[in-house]
């Protein structure tokens, strides 16, 4: 049981280490890389001696570009693990981590609310679609969800902005709360923050809930056809019990797996949503940094988005045993067969019950995360 948690933790740390290594490669070794770009720019501006330029590069990126490469690499990785991602170029006097620390909570707030709403909405709609497969509701919903899951989030964001913030000024055009309010747990501030978050959250939910509904439907349909559900019904168990313990829990398994994948997708979408709603979260700063060629801030945003997603995934991994105890307490092969026949083991085997969802249902969320 412990080994499961340790394995997940190590995998998460290795991923973060790999991302920092990759970002060193991008910053230092790519042709036309940011450090050379910065040096060339400062040389062009003139008025600085080569030593001053080096000192400035060092202040911004935290590495001395003249030393041997392995030393630069160790410096970069060491700095990153100590939480030092250098200085921002376009916001002089501000550290990259300082800027992001102010932005990340807003992104996490909007994303988690949006994820919760689309998850619950998708689960409910998907279950109804599976239970009443031939109803008008199921047919209409199939059309709507396939249509919505094909629409890029930036189009939804632009349209929402146009209709609800510009044409009708029902919601604010930009920002996270009305400037001048006292930050804290007081009603005007909370109300203003919610008001500013409604349209960004709506953007994620509109493109997101369809995917959840479709994969939930696929999952429930598969479970409803399973022998152990039929067996439970034929024993005369109350319908509520069958729905909750036999269908409900088992069809949730692939959903929880998707939860981990969709977090990365949401952070990807934040780049568009926050840019259009001028919502100063981490995605907003990522694009702002690119447009002002502030590469140190850009790499910082990239690294911290990744770290946030990796940790979110880790939390999902740690919660997974609650939904599926088999993952930490593997039963022996013989016992599993017996259990599968008796009707307790979802789909008779593997810990992840999502295999039978069908390629479209199982993969759609992954793909949109490109």
């Amino acid at each position: 049981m412990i080994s499961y948690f340790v394995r997940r933790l190590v995998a998460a740390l290795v991923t973060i280490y790999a991302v920092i290594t990759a970002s060193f490669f991008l910053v230092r070794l790519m042709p036309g890389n940011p450090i050379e770009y910065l040096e060339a720019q400062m040389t062009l501006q003139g008025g600085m001696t080569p030593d001053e330029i080096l000192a400035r590069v060092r202040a911004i990126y935290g590495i001395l570009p003249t030393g041997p490469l392995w030393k630069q690499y160790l410096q970069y990785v060491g700095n990153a693990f100590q939480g030092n991602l250098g200085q921002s170029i376009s916001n002089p006097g501000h550290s990259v981590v300082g800027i992001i620390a102010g932005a990340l909570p807003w992104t996490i707030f909007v994303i988690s609310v949006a994820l919760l709403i689309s998850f619950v909405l998708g689960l409910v709609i998907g279950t109804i679609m599976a239970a009443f497969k031939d109803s008008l509701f199921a047919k209409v919903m199939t059309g709507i969800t396939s249509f919505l899951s094909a629409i890029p989030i930036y189009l939804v964001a632009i349209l929402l902005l146009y209709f609800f913030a510009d044409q009708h000024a029902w919601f604010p055009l930009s920002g996270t709360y009305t400037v001048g309010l006292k930050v804290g747990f007081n009603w005007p501030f909370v109300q203003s923050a919610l008001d500013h978050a409604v349209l960004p959250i709506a953007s994620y939910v509109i493109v997101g809930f369809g995917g959840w509904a479709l994969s939930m439907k696929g999952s429930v349909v598969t479970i409803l056809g399973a022998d152990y559900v039929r067996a439970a019904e034929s024993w005369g168990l109350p319908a509520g019990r069958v729905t909750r313990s036999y269908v409900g829990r088992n069809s949730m398994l692939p959903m929880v797996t998707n939860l981990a994948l969709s977090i990365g997708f949401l952070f990807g979408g934040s780049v568009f949503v926050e840019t259009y709603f001028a919502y100063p979260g981490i995605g907003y700063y990522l694009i702002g940094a690119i447009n002002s060629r502030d590469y140190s801030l850009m790499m910082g945003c990239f690294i911290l988005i990744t770290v946030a997603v990796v940790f979110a995934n880790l939390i999902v991994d740690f919660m997974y045993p609650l939904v599926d105890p088999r993952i930490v307490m593997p039963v022996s092969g013989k016992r599993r067969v017996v259990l599968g026949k008796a009707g307790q083991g979802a789909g008779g085997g593997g810990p992840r019950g999502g295999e039978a969802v069908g390629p479209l249902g199982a993969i759609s969320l992954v793909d949109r995360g490109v």
Partner: protein
Amino acid sequence: MELLKSLWRICVSDKPALVGGAVLVIYLVAALFGPVFVHVGKVANPSLAYLTPSWRHPLGTDFLGQDVLSEVIVGTRPVIEVGLLAAIFAVFVGVVIGLATGYLGGAIDMVLMRVADGFLTIPGLPLVIAVAAIIRSSSPFILAAIIAITAWAGLARAVRSQALSLRTADYIEAAKVQGLPLRNMISRQLLPNVGPYVAINFLLTVTGAIYAEVGLFVLGVAPVSGTNWGIMINLAMGNGALYTSKSLLYLVSPMAAIVFLQVALVFFARALDQLFNPRLRAQ
């Protein structure tokens, strides 16, 4: 041939799939022949700016006085080009790695699957944006390669699990006994069995790649030069399309072009899904 016939049968019974297929054909024709017949001028003509729709300009004109419909048609090719290229790269890498790891197992499997897990965990779009921002290229090959960096991992995992179950199949055992070389094992024995799955995923990867590619241009991360839908949206937003109703059509037209294409791809993928999964048809 037999396959095409059943595809047609499925399309006839599944109207959305038929419409999707037809729309895809229209887009392909526009991508192939559009630039031959339609041209977008390079010279600005402010006196023609923001014209309302007319016979001459069915979708009106943009802020430079250029015909919006022509721009949408000319913009089709670069979008589809990068979408297809990226999907080809990603599917190729995904299938090769999936088959190799599933079939060979051992240390290669361990290492490559950890790498794939890593790519599945880290958010793809921010990585693509960061790389594209540093490379700053508008070459379709480079853009496609950047987009494919993250798109292969999911497919590799799925193909691997199929290859794992095939590894113990009788005909694979038979092929092994005959001592067929690895290349033959992978390309002739394993590949045809994962082919259908790959075909569906190819279409879905195309939608993902188009989503990412247009996104790069919309945000202005990829260089704004030439004409494609992402650049059109970027310029429309940059010229205040949200605040003047005059340019609404200029903003909405490329958006509609994207939505129609994406929906068509998804609906057509559904037909392929039914074609290769007879069980779905029975349900």
